[in-house]
């Protein structure tokens, strides 16, 4: 008969066994159960709310914003600034990687008095006003600021409205047609009072691509 282990060692062994039991229940069985039920009951949402084009190709997630830029003039130049494509509704500025990169969700983290942020806001205001052909003072705040995730799929109804004429002209559509699409993809507050309304840019642009 060997000597019994000291109390402190026994306590730690008990702790280790407890942790392993909890890991099996809470770290393996629990997520497996939730995944199993989710995949059966809510498979589209559980897998990322992926959106498909009319010909069945996956083109994004309705929850993750995307870039809609013109092709680069020189694809090998890493310093060339991407230019927005007038044919598409443009999303908000993004701090996720080079913009809307889900490998690096992030906010800018610039403070309220930051000189860098002040300059970015002023530059964006001038650029958006020129691009959309509107008065600089009327550009809404969400068009001038990066979101918390860098993946925000929404823009405010005001920013969508600002872009209607420019998109209609670039696509040769009537502004009424484009405005109707904007209205269709404007998502109200959840249950009518939770959060804020927004226009889903991914779904709006998809609908736009299918409109002749």
């Amino acid at each position, binding site marked *: 008969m060997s000597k019994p282990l000291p109390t402190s060692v026994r306590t730690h062994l008990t702790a280790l066994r407890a942790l392993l039991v909890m890991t099996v229940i809470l770290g393996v069985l629990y997520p497996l159960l939730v995944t199993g039920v989710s995949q059966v009951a809510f498979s589209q949402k559980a897998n990322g709310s992926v959106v498909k084009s009319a010909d069945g190709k996956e083109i994004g997630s309705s929850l993750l914003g995307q870039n*809609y830029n013109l092709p680069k003039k020189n694809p090998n130049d890493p310093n060339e600034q991407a230019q927005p494509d007038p044919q598409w509704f443009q999303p908000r500025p993004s701090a996720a990687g080079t913009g809307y990169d889900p490998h690096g969700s992030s906010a800018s983290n610039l403070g309220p008095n930051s000189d860098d942020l002040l300059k970015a806001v002023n530059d964006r205001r001038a650029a958006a006003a020129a691009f959309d052909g509107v008065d600089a003072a009327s550009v809404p705040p969400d068009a001038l600021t*990066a979101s918390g*995730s860098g*993946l925000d799929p929404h823009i405010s109804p005001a920013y969508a409205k600002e872009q209607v004429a420019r998109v209609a002209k670039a696509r040769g559509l009537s502004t009424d047609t484009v405005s109707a699409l904007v209205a269709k993809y404007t998502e109200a507050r959840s249950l009518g009072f*939770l959060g804020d309304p927004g226009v889903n840019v991914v779904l709006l642009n998809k609908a736009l691509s299918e409109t002749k």
Partner: protein
Amino acid sequence: MSSTLAGWLQALALVGALALCYRPLGDYIAKLLTTAKHLRVERGIYKTIGVDGDADQRWPVYLRSVLAFSLVSVLFLYLLQRIQNHLMLSLGFKAVGEHGAWNTAISFVTNTNWQDYAGEATLGHTVQMAGLAVQNFVSAAVGIAVVATLIRGFTRSRTDRVGNFWVDLTRICLRLLLPLSVVFALVLVANGVIQNFHGFHDLATLGGDTQSIPGGPVASQEVIKELGTNGGGFFNANSAHPFENPTGFTNWLEVFLLLVISFSLPRTFGKMIGDHRQGYAIVSVMGIFWAGSAALMTFFETHASGVALKAAGAAMEGKEVRFGPWATSLFASSTTLTSTGAVDGAHDSLTPGGGGVAIFDMMLGEIAPGGTGSGLYGMLVLAIVAVFVAGLMVGRTPEYLGKKLGGREMKFASLYILTTPAIVLVGTGVAMALPGERANMLNSGAHGFSEVLYAFTSAGNNNGSAFAGITVTSPWWDTALGLAMVFGRFLPMIFVLALAGSLAQQQPVPATEGTLPTHKPLFVGLLSGVVLIVVGLTYFPALALGPLAEGLH
């Protein structure tokens, strides 16, 4: 509907939902902490881990069990991260570096969930699920277990037994956290939160780009991250990420989840001590601070200030369109008052006033309503201080709930309230004194100082949110904040358990005419005043250098 009306309605709906849960959830937790009956599966667990589920522990034994469990957890979590490249579902990520793994292990075991890493670029599914999410459950349970011993200290007399840690831990996980998590994880998935085991998959976008859609068991982790007041996001952007928090409804639900246990525990307290009025007094104080903080935060965030935010026309930097300033403010106040630290927007980009409220919320010591369990024990310690102060005024030995507050008890209570401020202020001071470490701030001037102050306040109080512009991945920051988290979690716990042991041994004294009634509005006011004075006097100089200086800018 106007934003203002919607904003008020979401807050009122939240208060209503929490009020509805107060009695049933509080009573349920009281029952599971006091019943002698074990479930069959629990008996199996006690047998497996080798403990006697019917034997209560003395407070030092209970404490050693808590510490042993936490130490083993840190080592296990550290190991998992260090061998990540050999694990299943690692998505090709390499092993986490030494100081980063230490920081993360400490962070999740202490219920802080400070993150020096970006989830989607660092961790595979196994570490998230079998490492981090497990700690989300058990660290929350440890907090509730410790407050249970303090309540037992009041209800028991002439005993040296304060409960059995292994029984408390098992019951809180299996009877409380797990069932709620299963239900609400499915609610989240039904609203768009992802739940799968995929890695990234690439697709071609209409704009001619390639985008990678992430995968992962997010909903199962998201729910316990809120419910257990943990706050560590699956993704870097935390609850601002659309895959963690896709709609206005999920946002509201997440705020509800991170508040519901801590706001119901005063009912548990009232039930266990046999006087519900005492619970109402405590929850009133918590509610006053929560409502005040939410109102102030909302005011600041809906009135843009700071030159850059003013230039943009609204405080939308770092905020998601689907939430907007109202919902983001409600989340920001609730997460900083509960030691959760999840964020649905960038706190670094809050207005000077809003950022100041967030820091002040944490400085209150995470008590309104605080982390699961830790919030209530923090508030009860302050209640003891408040009773003591009142006792000094009239010159008699103070007593709370029939227990005399003598020198021993007051020593533990005083040590408790001194610990965290010491960690926060010393840590901030040292970081600011070292030019190399100070340079890690992103913003400059007063806001840069706020980033450092926020970091140590968050770590010391086990919150975990950040003014995230600051770079904290260097060995110095990983180590310093790791130490702040360890001491900020376990020193107060030691004092609470010692206090529980000391109270349990006492013979109750009958209430007399001179006893201060602790269930009346007078006491609610007194306790609120003590909270404000303790925090205000301790932190005012630091607040003046950071957020106040910035607001006056």
